[in-house]
């Protein structure tokens, strides 16, 4: 048994636990990813509120913990302890299952997300297809929630979202296919649908697919980036939960824990689709300029990034400590912030240790790219008004779809010619 | 303008001016035509307000007042007519669509019925409201007292 566990850890194994057939490590990975994504969602929740607040000249959460750092936890506690209401006229079973479907759909996709060449649960050879397929199941949860609530606003929200998600899936799929086409530009002429294979293809072709056949890759990427915002029901495409029109859309009748499951699912889905975009167009786990800036020195420099990032965060925290009011009332908060900064600094120092450094690099670059997308989500939300339903459909069917088709065809032609 | 109207309707209208504001008291039988004429021939295209006054001592208890404004002439005029309690008056919704809600409000507050109004029902008060609050004989606490007597079993909520 111990051998079975340690066999995966030997240096010669350079594949995912799923491929190696190691169920133990696959389970460990699943747990790590589940926990990591949950923590990321919590962090995202805090960051979104903070960043949005600063966009809007306010402070955001400031009371629970230093700079509101414990706010998401307080919120989670509140949601856990709230009364669980099921409307009397609701279809109880469907009402009960709907949030679970959304949650399962968005978390299942992480099985194939490649955080590194060996850092994924498994490498399905239909990886990207699997991700699109499973994430498209989330719409079922939305529709079920809206219908089961037996109320008008959720029903309209569900109708809107089903139409919206089905429409944008098509443009999204076409954009993905044009990226997949690019993977076949090698000696054998066979492409791949595997997430890890796609990143390897970018490595082999010495270019992120974003810049491949410029500007074709860029256009496909932009189409995907727009469609993925629509897929996850975020501003400016947040019609299914348009607050000012439908109160809260499909989850109007939900409260407490069930409601928080919707939120968890939504944020997990945001991270998941961003992961697809990173994998397909931004070189996945690869560090910037893996081919231009080669050699021992550059490898060392880039491997120091994770450590420095955490150190910088800890410096930020300590600056916050210094700027805290010197009133005794704030003593606990100041100490908390200092402790938080110390933890960040410690993590940063650990990340400088060579074996850790080498293993964590891939995950760091992948997460950093995904974090960029998360920031974009917040930025959109602060800037854009909401589309109207017919305009949304117009954008999806009359702009994105033809452009995506055109990009696909031109990519195919260029692929044959070159 | 006044002369023309006077010539047309004779003693039916009585033009007056108070504090530089023109108004006329018209016989209630003239009402739909006079308003129509004011709109079509005298260009009073904007009905500012429809309201009423209650004089319980008079025989004709109610004044119904149209406040009109003419965009081309930049001029206001008020048309006033007197009716008895329970008497209906022709609606002016077909002349100025604005009058729809304004007449509903007058009905709600005074109980004056407008004949030919497309949808005459209470607007500000609930459908089950008793009485018409802007009549002078309507006490402001009677509704309240009735409610507490029924629901709380006490004499007065004040």
């Amino acid at each position, binding site marked *: 048994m111990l051998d079975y566990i340690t066999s995966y850890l030997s240096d010669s194994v350079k594949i995912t636990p*799923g*491929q190696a*057939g190691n*169920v133990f490590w696959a389970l460990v990975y699943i747990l790590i990813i589940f926990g990591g994504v949950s923590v990321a969602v919590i962090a995202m929740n805090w960051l979104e509120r903070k960043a949005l607040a600063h966009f809007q000249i306010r402070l955001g959460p400031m009371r629970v913990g230093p700079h509101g750092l414990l706010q998401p936890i307080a919120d989670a506690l509140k949601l856990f302890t709230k009364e669980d209401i099921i409307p009397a006229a609701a*279809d109880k079973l*469907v009402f009960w299952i709907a949030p679970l479907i959304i949650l399962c759909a968005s978390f299942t996709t992480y099985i194939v997300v490649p955080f590194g060449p060996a850092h994924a649960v*498994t490498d*399905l*050879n*239909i990886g990207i*297809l*699997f991700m*699109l*397929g*499973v994430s*498209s*199941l989330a*719409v*079922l949860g939305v*529709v*079920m929630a*809206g*219908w089961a609530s037996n109320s008008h606003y959720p*029903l309209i929200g*569900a*109708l809107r979202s*089903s*139409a919206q*998600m*089905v429409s944008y*899936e098509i443009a999204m*799929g076409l954009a993905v296919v044009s990226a997949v086409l690019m993977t076949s530009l090698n000696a054998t002429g*066979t492409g791949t*649908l595997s997430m890890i294979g796609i990143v390897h293809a970018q490595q082999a072709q010495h270019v992120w697919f974003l810049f491949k056949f410029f500007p074709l890759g860029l256009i496909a990427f932009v189409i995907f980036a727009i469609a993925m915002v629509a897929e996850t029901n975020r501003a400016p495409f947040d019609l299914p939960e348009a607050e000012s029109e439908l109160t809260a859309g499909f989850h109007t009748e939900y409260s407490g824990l069930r409601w928080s499951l919707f939120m968890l699912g939504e944020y997990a889905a945001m991270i998941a689709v961003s992961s697809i975009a990173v994998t397909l167009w931004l070189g996945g786990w690869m560090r910037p300029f893996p081919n231009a800036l080669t050699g021992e020195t550059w490898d060392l420099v880039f491997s120091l990034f994770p450590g420095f990032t955490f150190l910088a965060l800890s410096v930020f925290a300590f600056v916050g400590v210094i700027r805290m009011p010197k009133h005794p009332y704030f003593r606990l908060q100041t100490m908390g912030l200092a402790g938080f900064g110390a933890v960040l600094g410690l993590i940063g120092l650990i990340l400088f240790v060579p074996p850790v450094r080498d293993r964590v690099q891939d995950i760091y670059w992948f997460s950093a790219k995904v974090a960029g997308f998360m920031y974009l989500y917040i930025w959109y939300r602060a800037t854009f008004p909401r589309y109207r339903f017919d305009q949304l459909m117009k954008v999806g069917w009359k702009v994105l779809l033809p452009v995506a088709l055109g990009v696909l065809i031109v990519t195919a032609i260029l692929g044959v010619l070159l | 303008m006044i002369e023309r109207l006077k010539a047309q309707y004779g003693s039916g209208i009585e033009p007056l001016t108070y504090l530089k504001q023109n108004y006329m008291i018209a016989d209630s039988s003239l009402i739909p035509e006079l308003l129509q004429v004011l709109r079509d021939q005298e260009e009073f295209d904007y009905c500012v307000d429809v309201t009423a006054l209650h004089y319980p001592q008079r025989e004709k208890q109610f004044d119904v007042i149209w406040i009109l404004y003419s965009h081309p002439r930049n001029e206001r005029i008020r048309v006033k007519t007197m009716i008895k309690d329970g008497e209906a008056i022709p609606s002016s919704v077909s002349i100025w669509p604005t009058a729809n809600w304004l007449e509903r409000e007058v009905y709600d507050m005074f109980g004056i019925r407008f004949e030919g109004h497309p949808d005459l029902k209470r607007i500000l008060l609930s459908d089950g409201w008793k009485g018409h609050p802007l009549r002078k004989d309507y006490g402001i606490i009677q509704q309240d007292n009735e409610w507490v007597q029924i629901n709380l079993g006490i004499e007065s909520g004040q």
Partner: protein
Amino acid sequence: MAPVATTFFFYFLSGVTLISALMVITQRNAVHSALALILSLLGQAALYLMLYAPFVAGVQIILYAGGIMVLFLFVIMLVSIERQQKEEQFNKLWLVGLTAAVALGGLFIGVYVKGKSLFSGPLRPLPETSNTQDIAVMLYGNYMFAFEIASLLLLVAIIGAVVMAKKRI
């Protein structure tokens, strides 16, 4: 990866598929039927995975469970369910249905009994990795014409549906 508990999963998934398929026709509520159908389709997708046909499984999930069934639900939700539940089933051809079911069952049993002699030769499982490529070769190589005909048929159906549903185009 080596398969684990194959027999158990096969019977489990078949059971899920069959029971939910039965629920599709026994449920009174149309939305429940549709949800059961989705479950049935997902069970099928999992069975495809067990047959080393991941591409077909993926397409099954994307197209049927995630796409077509959502549109089904969309339509069902727009139709008043209360009215529908009161209405009688429009189809009285249970005799024909029974005959068809018996015939189909007979065919299945026949294939099961005589199958070995009908399809002689060893089973040739395709390697997992080249599965997708093989499907592509078949669809766009060997059966190109049939494939295009099918897509043309679908196009005609779409146009027909639009014409029927919309008074003015």
